């Protein structure tokens, strides 16, 4: 990290993303799924913020809302100092080159009828006016950058393996020289031996092009490898946000603790040393969250106050943020 003043590239304040539930013949609105329910954080230039949580905790919705793929329900998003939370149409479109996304499933996010070259060039066609030669030159440049052989430019996605398809998706995301990329579980669909290849590529590209990542994942060990800071989400809220080393060595929120202890370690001799915390029950429904702290229904250290009052997301002395009544 750079010393001195850290410049936030993205500022999210009390972001809310609620999806309405419609029912009956008249499609009346009967409730809301509070996928993201008031999250706040900043991402500094050149860093990787890891966003972790289990399925249904709202991490993907948060990523998509930040890129304004949704109309958000509340709060604000600032990219490079510009408020983008209510931009529409053309204004928003002009901002797209600045922020891009790498999707989870490289099979589903690539059009099977387009060649690799046309997939990678699509953002260029949409946003830039390039001559044919310039366009091909840029495509080759991108293919080189992500380690795809130039000969493959006219092939179709089905001719590639999962790892190579993810490289195509990465090349497309890089096409417009974005500064900020949301990586939504980019390695979850890949085999273990291929995951490391893609993660190393993401790190190389970050260094080369000065990228800033929001890395969304459920894989805590990979996030530990990649992230500068880590935010842990549970049921639409961030429960803990801390620098990587601090979070993994000394988790403060009971959910972070339980989550870390649940990750199976590839070392049979560590079994007896580590204390396992087995959480009871399942994650409550985000359309009907519990009153008070969202984690109070499963928390091993629940107190009376947790069931009544929502804990505040506040900063501790060591710089991390935690939302838990135990910190009071």
């Amino acid at each position, binding site marked *: 990290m750079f010393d001195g003043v850290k410049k936030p590239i993205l500022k999210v304040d009390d972001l809310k993303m609620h999806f309405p539930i419609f029912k009956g013949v008249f499609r009346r609105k009967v409730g809301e799924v509070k996928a993201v329910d008031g999250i706040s954080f900043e991402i500094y230039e050149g860093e990787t913020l890891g966003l972790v949580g289990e399925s249904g905790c709202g991490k993907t919705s948060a990523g998509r809302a930040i890129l304004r793929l949704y109309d958000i329900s509340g709060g604000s998003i600032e990219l490079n100092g510009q408020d983008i939370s209510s931009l529409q149409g053309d204004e928003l479109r002009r901002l797209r080159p600045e922020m891009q996304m790498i999707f989870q499933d490289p099979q589903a996010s690539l059009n099977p009828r387009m060649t690799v070259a046309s997939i990678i060039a699509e953002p260029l066609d949409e946003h830039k006016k390039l001559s044919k030669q310039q366009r091909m030159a840029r495509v080759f440049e991108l293919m080189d950058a992500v380690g795809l052989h130039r000969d493959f430019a006219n092939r179709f996605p089905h001719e590639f393996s999962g790892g190579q398809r993810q490289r195509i998706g990465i090349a497309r995301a890089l096409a417009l020289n974005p500064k900020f990329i949301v990586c939504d579980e980019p390695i979850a669909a890949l085999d*273990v031996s291929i995951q490391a290849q893609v993660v190393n590529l993401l790190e190389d590209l970050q260094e080369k092009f000065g990228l800033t990542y929001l890395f969304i994942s459920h894989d805590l*060990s990979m996030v530990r490898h990649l992230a500068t800071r880590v935010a842990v989400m549970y049921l639409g809220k961030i429960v803990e946000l801390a620098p990587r080393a601090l979070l993994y060595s000394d988790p403060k929120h009971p959910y972070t603790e339980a989550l870390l202890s649940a990750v*199976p370690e*590839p070392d*049979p001799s560590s079994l007896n040393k580590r204390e396992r915390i087995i*959480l009871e029950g399942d994650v409550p429904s985000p359309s009907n969250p519990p009153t008070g702290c969202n984690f109070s229904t499963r928390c091993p250290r629940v107190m009376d106050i947790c069931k009544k009052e929502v804990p505040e997301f506040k900063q501790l002395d060591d710089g991390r943020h935690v939302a838990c009544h135990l910190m009071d």
Partner: protein
Amino acid sequence: MPDGAAPILDVSDLKTVFTTRGGEVHAVNSVSFQLAPGELLGVVGESGSGKSVTMMSLIGLLPMPPAEIRGGQVMFEGHDILKMTPAQLRAVRGRKIGFVFQDPMTSLNPVFTVGFQVAEPLRRHMGMRKKQAWKRAAELLELVGIPDATARLSDYPHQFSGGMRQRVMIAIALACDPQVLIADEPTTALDVTIQAQILELVRELRQKLGMAIVWITHDLGVIAGIADRVMVMYGGQIVEQAPVRELFANPQHPYTRALLETLPSVTGARSKRLKTIEGQPPALGAHPTACPFRARCRHVMDVCHEQNPAITTLDAGHDVACFWDATTGEARHV
């Protein structure tokens, strides 16, 4: 066998071939292994390594054609499962050998109640009456830790969460007290905290019921925490087999070694850069005449391109199929 007990399941030289439009696909190539009573055997490998197909072929769950079992023997209680008639096979499958599949969403029938589905094997195999089976089904759900079991019997699968559905699947597999349970990636579709619950449950059930388990996974972390012995598969073959601590402490095959090195961890030292295994897993095609890992191997030698290495048994029940000797760093002297 490490402890000398007679194996409950003895697979030798199993070969499974799929006939496709693009030619033959040799998915399982001469796989041999044994399962001791009460043992938990972990099977690791990447997608396409043949781990699921091996287990499906040995209990006759593959559609034939396109699949064809070209050879081998699967001995279970003195009989060769591969030679059984469909009726004989049905008497074994679900009764003496239980199966848990990866995806609990798709392996339960959405139009029947959970109680009906748990009671089904009891009525089919154990000859129980409806009432009796229903009562036993409630006990089984309780055994796998579903709260308020009796009331939940009349619920449908969609009313259960992913973790709860996987518990139901386990209850069905355990219904007839099987001697062998084959679990194919049973926790892969689940979240880590739910996975931890299921792993804890399996540990408990093993102590209570004492069946032998084959646990298929791609997650070495899960294997480390649960298995007694581990079998590593690559390209349709077993490349290494050892007791769990031995395998993690002293891996012999270059693939196993590389795989363990690529894994980041949540504890311990954090590496600056992840080690990778370059290249792609092999496409399974014709019967392999050379080592399937040769194109990605760090220690590849001339012989690896010419012959497929046979299994060498090292000490302590540690088998490896490789021409390279990890202890000396040179070609193995046989």
